[in-house]
């Protein structure tokens, strides 16, 4: 789902940078208010933890594989601001230190994958747990957060030819509109979301059985 550099127009990435930086500062301030100076060590280890979660890959038939995001686990266990700030830190370090992802696509990835993913995961779990078994709520949370993130990324990609084209109407960045971009991103994630959901439930069960979470 990560978008490389060069596919997003400045008309999109500049306003998204403004929004994303605002959200990160607000999230960080909220954490600092709750944790005080302890927020530095907590965020650093949780960033490293989410880095590991994002590196977990499940092989699929046909030689392909799917990697999870781990955002649901972090968001439900630690809260969506913690999840958003720590995973955004990872995406930032990946983009500017490891050269993975992209500097121009960072805010899109950060808002799409991390912010939307974290908020959706947190609220889905907390709403669904009132009506269904917590394991099902956890699965729904993992599946839905990944798919709504994918929908957002597909929407942003589909927006590119609409807002960035030359005088003859030729696209200048990502070439496909909503009709192609959204299903192309969303359909594989409908299946990837199943793996995310299963892994999230598995982790939740393990933590619950060992008394490591009271969620």
């Amino acid at each position: 789902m990560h978008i490389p550099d060069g596919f997003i127009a400045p008309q999109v990435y500049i306003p998204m940078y403004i929004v994303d930086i605002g959200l990160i500062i607000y999230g960080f301030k909220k954490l600092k208010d709750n944790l005080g100076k302890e927020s530095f060590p907590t965020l650093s280890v949780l960033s490293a933890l989410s880095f590991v979660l994002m590196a977990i890959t499940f092989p699929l038939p046909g030689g392909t594989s799917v990697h999870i995001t781990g955002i649901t686990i972090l968001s439900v266990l630690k809260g969506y601001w913690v999840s958003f700030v720590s995973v955004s830190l990872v995406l930032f370090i990946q983009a500017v230190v490891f050269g993975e992802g992209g500097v121009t696509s960072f805010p899109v990835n950060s808002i799409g994958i991390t912010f939307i993913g974290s908020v959706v995961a947190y609220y889905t779990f907390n709403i669904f747990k009132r009506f269904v078994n917590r394991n099902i709520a956890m699965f729904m949370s993992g599946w839905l957060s990944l798919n709504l993130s994918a929908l957002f990324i597909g929407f942003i990609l589909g927006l590119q030819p609409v807002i960035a084209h030359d005088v003859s109407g030729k696209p200048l960045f990502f070439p496909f509109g909503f009709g192609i971009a959204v299903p192309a991103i969303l359909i594989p994630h409908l299946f990837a979301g199943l793996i995310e959901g299963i892994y999230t439930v598995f982790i939740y069960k393990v933590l619950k059985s060992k008394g490591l979470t009271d969620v």
Partner: protein
Amino acid sequence: MYDRYLLIMYLTTVFLITSIHNIWFYLLVFQLISIFSFKEFYKLIKKSIFSVLLFNSVVSISHTFINGFDKDYLLLLNLRVFVLTYMTFFIISKINLFKALSFSKNLTTLLVLSYSQILTYKKLFEEFNMALTTRTVKDLKFSDYLNFYGKVFEFFLDKSTKNAKDISDGMRSRGFFDD
């Protein structure tokens, strides 16, 4: 200050590359960066191509399949992505990001701490994966992977709790929490 200027120059060039839609401009930028990076030229070329190959191939082939072969668009898009990636790989090898962002003590502290933790976790995670590979003689089932990565998560969660306390104690003993 050198790192900060380099970062500003890099970000300005990124903005220009994404704002000027001209392949000659991209070639000019590429030529200039190539001069500065001539020692690592082939290494960077290889790394950049490898990094963008999958996404760009999918987009370029799909575009050609749907809209027909459009040389100008394909050249513009692929060259832009390639130049941006090449430049990013070159700049990140030359810049000390922590010095470049030292205008904010909080940001630098957070980045240094997170980066050091990520490097440690990354190495450990690779060792876990190597241990699995070297101890596996037949294909694993999905449930085996689930169990394995479940244990991996447990290990790292436990490590995170302990490390957070260690880092916190270390920072306190160095007077970081004294205002």
